């Protein structure tokens, strides 16, 4: 039986067709690395302020990954049906689908950098941690793109629940970046990524459960044990993070980080 992965013909051999996807991922990862480097440099030298460069690199990386996510997730939408086939998306499959969306959403663009800290240097280098989850996801994406398995093609990845989980986990990764900053520098940071993730996670998992109850008579329906335990566990830890005393931001940050990592594991985990 032929492999489900298409191959380039020519070039004197059978080379897996991962080059376009790998280029996109490497470009995005490079930009994220640059953004982190700029913030680390800003921590060393206060003048000149290079943080606008980091924002530009972040926006560019987010745009590249969002276009990739839109193409691979929107490929089945009627609006994009005529547009998508002109791109070779054969390397974007299985767990790559949630990871590309998560990586795009994890990039801190849109106002989390209004951090207040005790000293400028401390704030600046810890801002690099905002980009760390997105960078780690981009590395994971590169590994996934370069490796291919038949099971990834067979499993059901394009479902509304999977999409919603990937969005939650992507926003949760932003919360993870904020939590890492709190743990590293102790500076207060904006709350909205965490609040948005928790609210979205509650609405997504709650709605899925209500629909399952009415359609199938059970809370979890046909969801696998990984999704059941992982999703419920992540929600409980995030709830505990919200209840943790505000005067212990480090404890809150640890719990937020654990919940975000769990959510990311559930989103990338097997279908």
């Amino acid at each position, binding site marked *: 039986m032929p492999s489900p992965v298409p191959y380039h013909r020519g070039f004197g051999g059978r080379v897996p067709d991962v080059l376009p996807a790998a280029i996109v991922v490497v470009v995005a990862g490079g930009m994220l690395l640059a953004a982190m480097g700029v913030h680390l440099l800003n921590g060393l030298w206060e003048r000149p302020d290079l943080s606008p460069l980091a924002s530009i690199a972040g926006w560019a990386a987010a745009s590249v990954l969002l276009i990739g996510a839109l193409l691979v997730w929107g490929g089945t939408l009627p609006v994009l049906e005529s547009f998508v086939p002109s791109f070779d998306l054969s390397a974007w499959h299985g767990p790559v689908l949630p990871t590309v969306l998560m990586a795009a959403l994890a990039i801190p663009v849109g106002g989390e950098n209004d951090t207040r800290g005790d000293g400028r240097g401390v704030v600046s280098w810890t801002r690099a941690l905002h980009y760390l989850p997105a960078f780690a996801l981009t590395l994971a994406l590169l590994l996934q793109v370069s490796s291919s398995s038949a099971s990834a093609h067979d499993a059901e990845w394009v479902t509304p629940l999977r999409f919603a989980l990937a969005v939650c986990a992507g926003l949760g990764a932003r919360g993870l970046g904020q939590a890492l900053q709190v743990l590293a520098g102790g500076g207060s940071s904006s709350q909205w990524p965490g609040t948005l993730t928790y*609210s979205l996670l509650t609405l997504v998992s709650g709605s899925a459960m209500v629909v399952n109850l009415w359609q*199938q*008579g*059970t*809370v979890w329906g046909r969801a696998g044990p990984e999704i059941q*335990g*992982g999703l419920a566990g992540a929600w409980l830890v995030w709830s505990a993070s919200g*209840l943790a005393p505000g005067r212990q931001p480090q404890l809150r940050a640890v719990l937020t980080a654990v919940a975000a990592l769990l959510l990311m594991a559930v989103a990338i985990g097997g279908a």
Partner: protein
Amino acid sequence: MPERSPDPWRVLWQAATGDGALVILLLVTAAFLVLSAWIPQQPASDADYARWLSEAQLRFGSITPALRSLGVFHITRSAALRVLLSLIAGCLSLRLVENVELLLRGRQVTEPSHDWTEYSGQQLRQLLDRIRLRRYRVLRRSSLFQIDRWPLADLLPLMAHLGGILLLAGLLITRLLGWQVQGQVLQVGQRVSLPGVANWVELTEDGSGIVQSAGVVGFPEGEGPGVMVRAQDDRGRPLQVQLTAGRASSAAEPGSEVMIALTEDRYFALPEVNLVARLTPRSAEADSVVDVQVYRSPPGEIITQTASERGGAVSLTLEGVIIELSPAPYMVVTAAHNPGRVASGAGLLLLMVGAVGSAVWPARTFWLREQDTSIAVAGPVPSWLRGESA
């Protein structure tokens, strides 16, 4: 004068209703659930036991027996998880009582327990206008102003707690009184009896949907090929068709029309003319082509073999006997009886509204005090005011 020891009941109440107790319970429960997701749990049915055991041994190797003795393969059915859920239900109930009290007490101005800090920026009147614009409530007692979001900020946690209790109660009712039957194979118009009095599930005549008795929820899990078999002799007289025993079913009563779900290779016999036919679906799709082999019995020699159209339709004429197969795909149905469904559903809705509302509009009470020439603030001041406090 000796110091009075605190009332132990009050201490117990505060510990049980405090955030710390709930945080610990939630974290331990989360750890149990995450472990159950990572470690394959032993299935309740014997049918899946062998597959589970080989998977567990492949994954954990020689430590499987040790893990088994620790009970990590039964986490979801363990007494420890049930105790944890009971404790959470108890904790939520106590917090609900306290929430009701807070809601009722919300019309009174209380003294802050926080330190006062000077506030510079605006006049008191302007500041209060800004605060009211952000939908805060302002209560006044002489020169002290209490600012909060009553009643919404107290109502939302109450809804979340009530929702959690209802959800757990619904799950308990389901656990005690509910049931689920999986893998029921149904063909058009077929009805199967389910546990309990007069419970059933049926596939509609056109095969497009499922109907069930009150209180039962049936939902399709899959479908596959199936045929309706009819036979007649050369005089047009219907012949009896008997489904022979297969691995998945027992022999059925003979009839002039027999429906056969092709979950595997199946045989039927025409005893009056000594013929036996074997049906083999080429795939598990509902419109699969079916291979048909007809034998003379005895001695068991093949008379003819052919392939049907997609879906299974075929007509054979053999020694004056006409055998007709028409498509009758089967549906695999799971039926569930969940008496805790309403409680669980209502609990989930309340929990969603309460938890999201509490996250977006957290309960926040702070105080302003008008001093001779300045204003002092106390409590968790919102960020849009914090920037202006001295």
